[in-house]
C-alpha cells in the first residue's frame, strides 16, 4: 500500500512539475543544416537562456522546440503544422528562406500564432500585411525588406560603381530561385534609370551548377563592365571559381555565403575581392557594445559553424526578446491583436560612440518611408538616407580582400575599408 501511495505521489509530483515547467513554448522553424537556419536557432536559444535566467516571461519559463524545413516548401508547411498542432507553441521564430515562408504563411494565417521572420526579406509578404491586416496581424519581419535592400544598393551603384569606378554596363548572373528572381527584378528595374548603369544581359543558372566557366565566358562576351551576381545557394562555388578562373571583370552583387565568417574556409581561400550586399550586422561590420557581447557569449557557447551568427542570428536574439516583452505587456500570446499592437511599439536602440548604430523597431502602419514612398507595416525599421539618424541603413556592402580580410565598403558612414577591384582585373 505504501509502495502504491509512493508511486501515485511520485506521479502526481512529476505531473505537477511538468505542468509548472511547460510554460511558454517557442517554436523554431527553419533549416537545421544551414548556417542561416542555425544562426536564427542559436540567437533564439541565447535570448531564451537570458530571459529564463532573469525570471522568464511574467514568471513563466520559456522552452524551445525546433522543426526542420530542410529548405523545402512542403516540409516547411509540415513543420509549421507540427509546431502548431503537436507542440502547440505560443510563438514561432523563423529562419526560413523566401518560398518556404510563403509556403507556411497560409498556416500562420489560419492558426494565428505570433510569428517573427528573421531571414526572408520578400516585400510581397509585407504587401500581404497591407492587403490583409486582419489575418497577418501576428506576422512580423525584422529584416529590411528586399525593396529597401535594393534601393540602398542602387545608391552604391550610383556612388561607387558608376561615379567612382566609371562602370556603365552590367551583366547579371542570377541563380534560378525565388530570391534570385526577386533581387534581379529589383536591381534591373532600378540600376538603369537611377544609377545610369545599363543591364546588358541577364544569365540565369541552376543552383546545382558546378562548372561556371561557360557562364563566365558568356558574361565576358556580353561586353559589360562588371558582373552582378545574385546567389543564395552554394554561393561559395561561383565565388571560388571566379577567383580561380581569374575572370577579367569585377564581380559584385549578393552572395549569401560571403555573409558568414566561414566563407574564406569554404572557398579554400579563393574568395578574395568578392563584394556583397549584406543585411546588418554583417561580417566586417563594427559592432556596438551590446551586439559585441552577444557575439562573445555566442562564441563562448557554440564551437561549431557559424562562428559568428549571420544577421538573422542578431535579429532572432533581439526579436525574441521583443516578442516576449510584447507578450508581457499584452498578458501573453493568447490575445493576438493585443500582442501585435505591443510588438509594433517595441524599440531597442543600440549606440556606438554616442551615435545611433543599430535600431530594432518596426514601421508604423501608416508611416510612409520617404525615399520609396510606401509603407512597411510589421517590417524592420531602416533608414535609406545618410547620415542614418533614424535607424541603421537597410544594408551595407562588404568586401572580402585577397588576403582574407573583410570589411564594410558602403555606405561611407559604416565603411571600414575601400572598395577594390581584383588584382588580376587591374
Amino acid at each position, binding site marked *: 500500500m505504501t509502495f502504491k501511495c509512493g508511486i501515485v505521489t511520485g506521479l502526481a509530483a512529476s505531473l505537477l512539475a511538468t505542468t509548472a515547467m511547460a510554460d511558454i513554448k517557442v517554436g523554431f522553424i527553419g533549416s*537545421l*543544416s544551414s548556417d542561416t537556419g542555425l544562426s536564427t536557432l542559436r540567437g533564439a536559444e541565447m535570448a531564451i537562456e537570458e530571459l529564463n535566467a532573469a525570471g522568464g516571461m511574467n514568471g513563466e519559463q520559456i522552452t524551445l522546440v*525546433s*522543426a*526542420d524545413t*530542410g529548405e*523545402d*516548401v*512542403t516540409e516547411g*508547411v*509540415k513543420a509549421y*503544422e*507540427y509546431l502548431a*498542432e*503537436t507542440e502547440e507553441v505560443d510563438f514561432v521564430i523563423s529562419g526560413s528562406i*523566401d*518560398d518556404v515562408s*510563403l*509556403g507556411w*504563411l*497560409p*498556416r500562420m494565417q*489560419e492558426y494565428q500564432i505570433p510569428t517573427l521572420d528573421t531571414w526572408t526579406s*520578400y516585400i*510581397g509578404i509585407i504587401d*500581404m500585411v497591407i492587403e490583409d491586416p486582419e489575418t497577418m496581424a501576428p506576422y512580423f519581419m525584422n529584416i529590411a525588406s528586399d525593396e529597401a535592400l535594393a534601393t540602398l544598393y542602387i545608391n552604391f551603384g550610383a556612388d561607387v560603381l558608376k561615379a567612382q569606378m566609371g562602370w556603365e554596363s552590367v551583366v547579371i548572373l542570377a541563380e*534560378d*530561385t*525565388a530570391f*534570385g*528572381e*526577386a533581387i534581379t527584378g529589383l536591381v534591373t528595374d532600378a540600376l538603369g534609370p537611377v544609377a545610369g548603369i545599363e543591364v546588358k544581359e541577364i544569365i*540565369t543558372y541552376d543552383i546545382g551548377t558546378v562548372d561556371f566557366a561557360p557562364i563566365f565566358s558568356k558574361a565576358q562576351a556580353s561586353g559589360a563592365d562588371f558582373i552582378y551576381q545574385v546567389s543564395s545557394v552554394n554561393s561559395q562555388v561561383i565565388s571560388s571559381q571566379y577567383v580561380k578562373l581569374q575572370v577579367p571583370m569585377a564581380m559584385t552583387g549578393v552572395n549569401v555565403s560571403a555573409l558568414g565568417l566561414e566563407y574564406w574556409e569554404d572557398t579554400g581561400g579563393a574568395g578574395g575581392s568578392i563584394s556583397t550586399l549584406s543585411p546588418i550586422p554583417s561580417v566586417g561590420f563594427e559592432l556596438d557594445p551590446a551586439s559585441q557581447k552577444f557575439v562573445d557569449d555566442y562564441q563562448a557557447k557554440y564551437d561549431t559553424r557559424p562562428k559568428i551568427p549571420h544577421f538573422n542570428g542578431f535579429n532572432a536574439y533581439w526579436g525574441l526578446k521583443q516578442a516576449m516583452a510584447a507578450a508581457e505587456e499584452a498578458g501573453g500570446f493568447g490575445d493576438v491583436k493585443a500582442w501585435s499592437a505591443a510588438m509594433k511599439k517595441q524599440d531597442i536602440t543600440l549606440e556606438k560612440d554616442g551615435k545611433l548604430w543599430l535600431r530594432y523597431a518596426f514601421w508604423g502602419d501608416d508611416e510612409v518611408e520617404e525615399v520609396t514612398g510606401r509603407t512597411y507595416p510589421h517590417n524592420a525599421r531602416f533608414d535609406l538616407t545618410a547620415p542614418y539618424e533614424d535607424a541603421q541603413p537597410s544594408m551595407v556592402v562588404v568586401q572580402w580582400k585577397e588576403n582574407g580580410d573583410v570589411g564594410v565598403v558602403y555606405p561611407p558612414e559604416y565603411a571600414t575599408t575601400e572598395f577594390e577591384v581584383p588584382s588580376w582585373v587591374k
Partner: protein
Amino acid sequence: MNLRPHHFILWGLFIAGMFLMPELVGKGTLRTMIFACYLAMFAISWDILSGRTGYISFGHPFLIGIGAYTTGILTRRYGFPVEASIPIAVLVTMAGGLIVLLPALRIKGSYFALVTLAVMELMYQLVPVVRPDLTGGTRGISRLPALTRGAENGYYLAVGLMLAVALMAWLLMRTRVGTALWAIGMNEESVRGSGLSTTRLKSFAFLVSAGVAGMAGAFYAHYLGTITPRAFFDINVLFQIIVAVLIGGAGTIVGPIIGAFFMVFLLEWLRPYLPGQERFFVYGLIALVIYMYQPRGIMAIVEGAWTRLRGARS
C-alpha cells in the same frame, strides 16, 4: 467484376475506420494524415499507369503540377470559383498530359522513363520563366482560396477524396480493362497478338492516371494555400511517390495507401527525436530494409503473414 460480400465488408470497415479517426487521434496526427492521403492519391495515380502496365513514368509531378497550377492561375489570376477551376484543372491535366506524354507511350522501358523525366524537368525550368505574371515565377502563387479550415475538415475532405479514388481504381482493376492492363505489364506482345489495341488501353490508363493526378494536385494546391515550382516539379516529389508505391506494394490499391501513410508517419514520428535531416537517413534505411526483405512491399508481407496464420489454423 467478381464482387463478393467480404469485399463490401472490408471496404465498409476501412471507410468507417478512416472516418472515425478524428474521434481517436489529435489534430497534429490528422494533419499528418492529410498529407498521407494526398500522397496516397498521387501514388495510386502513378500505380494505375506504371504499376499495372510496367511503363515507369518519371513525369508524374508534371501532371500533378498542371492540375495545381491550372486551378491556382484560374482562381487567383482570373477569379474563377474553385468549383469550376478544379474540374477544369482535371481536364487540362488530361489534355496536357495527352499532348506531351502520350507520344512517349510508343517508346518502351527505360526510354519511356527518361522521356517522362525530361518532360518534368522541362516543366520545372519553364514554369518560372514562361509568363511569370501568371505562374508567379519561382515564388509561385500564394493565397489560393482554401476549401476547408481546420484539421478535421481538411482531413474529411482528403480522406473522402482518397477513398473515392481508391474505390474507383479498385473497381476499374476488377474490370476486363483492368485485367488487360495487367496483361500489358506482363507481356505486351501477347496482348497485341490477342487482337486488343494496346495503344488504346495504355492511353486509357494514362488518361485515368492523369485525371486522378490532376484532381489530387488541384485539391492539394488549395490545401497548401500556395504553390511553387519546387513543391511540385521537384525530383523529391517523384521519389516520394515511387517509394510510397514500392514500399506499400505496386499493382495493388491498398499498397500505395499503406506506403504513403508509412512514409509520411515515419518521418513525422522521427521528428521529435531527430529534428534535423538525419530522420531522412533513418527513414531511407528502414525503407531499404523493407524493400530488400520483400520487394513486393508491405502488402506482400501482410498477405504472407495472413496466409501463414490461416495455414497454421487449418
